[in-house]
């Protein structure tokens, strides 16, 4: 799976954005450079390309890129806010052979959704979602969950159902980058998670065969770490807007890792030989308690970025694991959240507390 981050630019300012907090320098890859990336990825065995960002529609050459990825034999998915998805552009993308459209919503409720996005986006998204269905695209709806919208999960599921989405991704924010900065405002309470899980379980039964619901709870509430990327350098690579190749989309948060660039090296070399892809590949790198843990080939020691963020050391067991000596740090934080109750954070920037994502400065 190749995640092609085409640009960091985006009209939205979501406080859990997956963009890095500190943008790397350099110009965006050209159309020709991306074409080469897709061809090289396909030769490496990649079958899937996700166009992401930022907002991939900010790239005027997106239909060309979709056609290039399809020509290379990749399944293509547009991961978009839908801002800028006019009928004309959607028709061009259909013509280019784009396989699936995934549209993010911030909530089912317009006022809250616009507050989270930091701009009036909700109505545009609704229109775009209906339009892509008219054009015959399959639709995935994606909603990042957090304390401010998770209590509306039933209504969010109804929204996706009314849009006739085949798939609905309800993933809690993952606390890296912007979301880590804002995690005190974003992490849901324990009762909120339990209630949401109950709703999802009921609605999954009702919607079986009609809409597939993916639900991801925050690993802060888990005893075992998530099998991040299904293992470092195992199945997944990200190429960022300036051409750096990362084993996971947030790997740039690991300070002592250096990432090779598709402008300087073939993708196959980066995947097979580079220091960054080999650093945590397999199980050799693992410290105790991972190295003799029966789960080591199941969760791969969890997430390196989380180890770096919480423990200050990317080479230790993911602090989400109850066996990690750093678990206490997460537990203290999780408990500090419980007393805030179920009130969502204020997304009003003037009231402070929340940092909205900013665009790179040109």
């Amino acid at each position: 799976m190749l995640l092609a981050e085409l640009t960091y630019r985006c009209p939205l300012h979501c406080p859990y954005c997956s963009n890095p907090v500190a943008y790397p320098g350099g110009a965006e890859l050209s159309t020709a450079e991306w074409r080469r990336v897709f061809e090289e990825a396909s030769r490496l065995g990649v079958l899937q390309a996700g166009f992401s960002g930022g907002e991939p529609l900010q790239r005027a050459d997106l239909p060309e890129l979709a056609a290039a990825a399809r020509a290379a034999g990749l399944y293509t998915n547009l991961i978009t806010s839908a801002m800028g998805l006019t009928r004309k552009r959607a028709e061009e993308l259909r013509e280019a052979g784009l396989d699936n459209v995934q549209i993010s919503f911030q909530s089912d409720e317009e006022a809250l959704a616009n507050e989270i996005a930091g701009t009036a986006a909700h109505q545009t998204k609704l229109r775009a979602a209906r339009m892509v269905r008219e054009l015959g695209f399959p639709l995935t709806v994606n909603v990042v969950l957090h304390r401010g919208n998770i209590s509306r999960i039933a209504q969010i599921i109804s929204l996706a159902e009314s849009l006739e989405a085949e798939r609905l991704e309800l993933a809690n924010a993952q606390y890296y980058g912007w979301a880590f900065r804002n995690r005190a405002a974003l992490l849901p309470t324990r009762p909120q998670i339990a209630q949401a899980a109950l709703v999802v379980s009921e609605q999954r039964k009702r919607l079986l065969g009609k809409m597939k619901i993916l639900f991801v709870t925050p690993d802060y509430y888990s005893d075992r770490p998530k099998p991040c990327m299904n293992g470092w350098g195992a199945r997944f690579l990200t190429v960022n807007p300036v051409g750096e190749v990362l084993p996971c989309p947030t790997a740039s948060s690991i300070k002592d890792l250096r990432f090779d660039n598709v402008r300087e090296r073939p993708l196959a070399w980066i995947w097979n030989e580079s220091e960054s892809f080999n650093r945590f590949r397999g199980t050799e790198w693992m410290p105790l308690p991972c190295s003799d843990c029966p789960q080591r080939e199941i969760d791969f020691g969890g997430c390196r970025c989380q180890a770096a963020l919480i423990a200050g050391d990317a080479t230790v067991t993911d602090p989400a694991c109850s066996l990690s000596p750093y678990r206490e740090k997460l537990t203290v934080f999780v408990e500090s959240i419980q007393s805030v109750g179920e009130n969502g954070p204020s997304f009003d920037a003037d009231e402070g507390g929340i940092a909205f994502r900013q665009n790179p400065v040109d």
Partner: protein
Amino acid sequence: MTPMNAESRPALARGVRLWIDPITGGPVLLFPEGVLPLDDTTHDVISRCSGAATLEAIVDSLAEEYEADRATLQNDVCECLMQLREEMLVTLSP
């Protein structure tokens, strides 16, 4: 989920592609953010899900090819298609 009957006409769901993995040479289903490698039997079932062929015709065709007991085969095919429908990989044509 709507139950299937002999007249149901299963088809690949929108956005799902039957594909040959160029590295392994084996058939896979490609769908949003997913790849499902297919064993021979599942591949034989899916390649018959054209949206035009009825379940009955699919089972007939497989029974002939496998020289297998039709009733057992029908159960297996239904079970296989039910799982694929739950994953939104197969739908029933109207």
